[in-house]
């Protein structure tokens, strides 16, 4: 095979795998920001919290990091439900959510980061998995399981969430809640309960994404920063409330970044990827898969 072609194919494939990680990081935000109108800027910080928790638990127990992530996810769900309760009580109920709510989550982000430094120190943490050092080869294309397994598990979890949103009673109410919350009350559905539940789900996804992140790269308290711009960009590009759009936007973002990094160097990749975002929004303001209605 032409070496340039092999390079391109490898760039695309590892971009897709990176995109799987981005999808995991962004899917939770697609729920909170896209469906609930809660601008949770602390979402990547929760992912990092999950990553460090998984890394520490993995060091202590030797269990599989993705299994550990699934085990801590219910705890994150409960934390999300409590956090939304506070956010609703102090900001949303009074109609103060636009600016003060954003400041609230900004504060939450710093509390998490400082909390991590105080509790476990500023150093990097890393989770090891039995399968992480294996690489499958398809011809000239490398498929490192360190990337492939977290991406596959994340996509499966997002798929399950999408089914739940489409076919469950609570799921449909989550999809409806930002469109008209008072109309939900007239159907005997408490919008606050629905949002509390859904915000919990978004943090449970952050925990799962954290488990994936801890396998892929070493993580410290500030590792969430580089994700903030990316996950918001992906959610917006995907059309806010569309999980399918979020996944495709994440994969596209990963491929654009990775191919750019392969051929032009990593310093170009954010510029090109965010340029692609602007281009998408110029052509389709509602995002790739947003419904205009």
């Amino acid at each position: 095979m032409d070496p340039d072609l092999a390079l391109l194919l490898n760039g695309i494939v590892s971009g897709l795998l990176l995109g799987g990680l981005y999808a995991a990081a962004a899917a939770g935000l697609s729920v909170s920001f896209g469906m609930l109108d809660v601008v949770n800027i602390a979402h990547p910080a929760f992912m990092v919290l999950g990553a460090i928790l998984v890394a520490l638990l993995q060091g202590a127990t030797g269990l599989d990091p993705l299994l550990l992530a699934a085990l801590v996810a219910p705890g994150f769900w409960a934390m999300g439900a409590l956090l939304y309760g506070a956010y609703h009580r102090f900001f949303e109920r009074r109609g103060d959510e636009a600016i003060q709510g954003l400041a609230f989550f900004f504060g939450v982000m710093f509390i998490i980061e400082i909390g991590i430094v105080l509790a476990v120190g500023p150093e990097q943490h890393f989770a090891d998995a039995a399968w992480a050092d294996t690489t499958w080869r398809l011809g000239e294309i490398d498929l490192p399981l360190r990337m492939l397994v977290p991406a596959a598990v994340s996509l499966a979890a997002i798929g399950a969430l999408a089914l739940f949103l489409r076919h469950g009673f609570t799921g449909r109410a989550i999809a409806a809640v930002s469109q008209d919350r008072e109309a939900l009350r007239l159907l005997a559905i408490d919008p606050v309960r629905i949002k509390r539940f859904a915000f919990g789900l978004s943090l449970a996804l952050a925990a799962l994404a954290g488990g994936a992140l801890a396998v892929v790269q070493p993580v410290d308290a500030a590792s969430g920063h580089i994700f903030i711009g990316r996950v918001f960009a992906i959610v917006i590009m995907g059309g806010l409330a569309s999980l399918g759009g979020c996944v495709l936007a994440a994969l596209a973002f990963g491929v654009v970044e990775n191919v750019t990094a392969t051929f032009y160097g990593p310093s170009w990749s954010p510029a090109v990827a965010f340029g692609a975002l602007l281009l998408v929004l110029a052509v389709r303001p509602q995002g790739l898969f947003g419904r205009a209605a």
Partner: protein
Amino acid sequence: MGAEAWPGAAGGPGGARGAGAGLLVEGVDAGYGAVRALDGVSLAVAPGETVALLGTNGNGKTTLMRCILGLLRPTRGRIAATIDGVTTELVGRSPEEIVDLGIAIVPEGRRLFPRLSVEENLLLGAYRRSARAAIPRNLEFCYDAFPRLKERRGQAVGSMSGGEQQMVALGRAVMCAPRLLLVDEPSVGLAPILVARTVEKIAELKERLGLTVLMAEQNFHQAIRIADRGYVLVHGRVEFRGDSPAELGDSELVRKFYLGL
């Protein structure tokens, strides 16, 4: 009007012992801040009746609907629903609790979820536990009463016409498995021919499902086509009660204040 009388329903709303759903509103005052929108409103809806709440815009019809549904708390007065012989006081309850008693609303402006499909909107109507068991039957009923919705079950509601959206709103209320159906201004935003059809559909749903209906409507002539009785609200007060459509139509007061004849 003074204390509420009970036209044709001795024993109170719901006829206390009988099956069916009734509603009683007694001396209700309500307002927004310093503005008083309802002033001592009393009315009754007996089981199986279709009662029209008439009046032009801004006379308190929607405010009364909001009070019945718990979206606005009256400053004075009593609202009670009697469903299958069980009377429940509504003032102080949340809208979720009130709807869960079996009181469904077709709200003014329809209040659908535009980015969800027809079927998703309908199924959201059946969220409450006692409505879920009846989903297959009620969904079939909706698609039978509104064949258009079956054809378009997968379409986003926001992309449909006003008439089709009104069908979705009626269907969604059917999916709630209600006993008492409140309809707020079904004619708003619809062409006259569609208003007539919507009103006929409400009568059809009422007959087929054995509902009790309270309908707020400013289109007098359409409303009295299906109403058994009616009340006329003027500046937040019940100014006239007509115990038959003819009585409403013949009233000097209605002709003068309301129809402007």
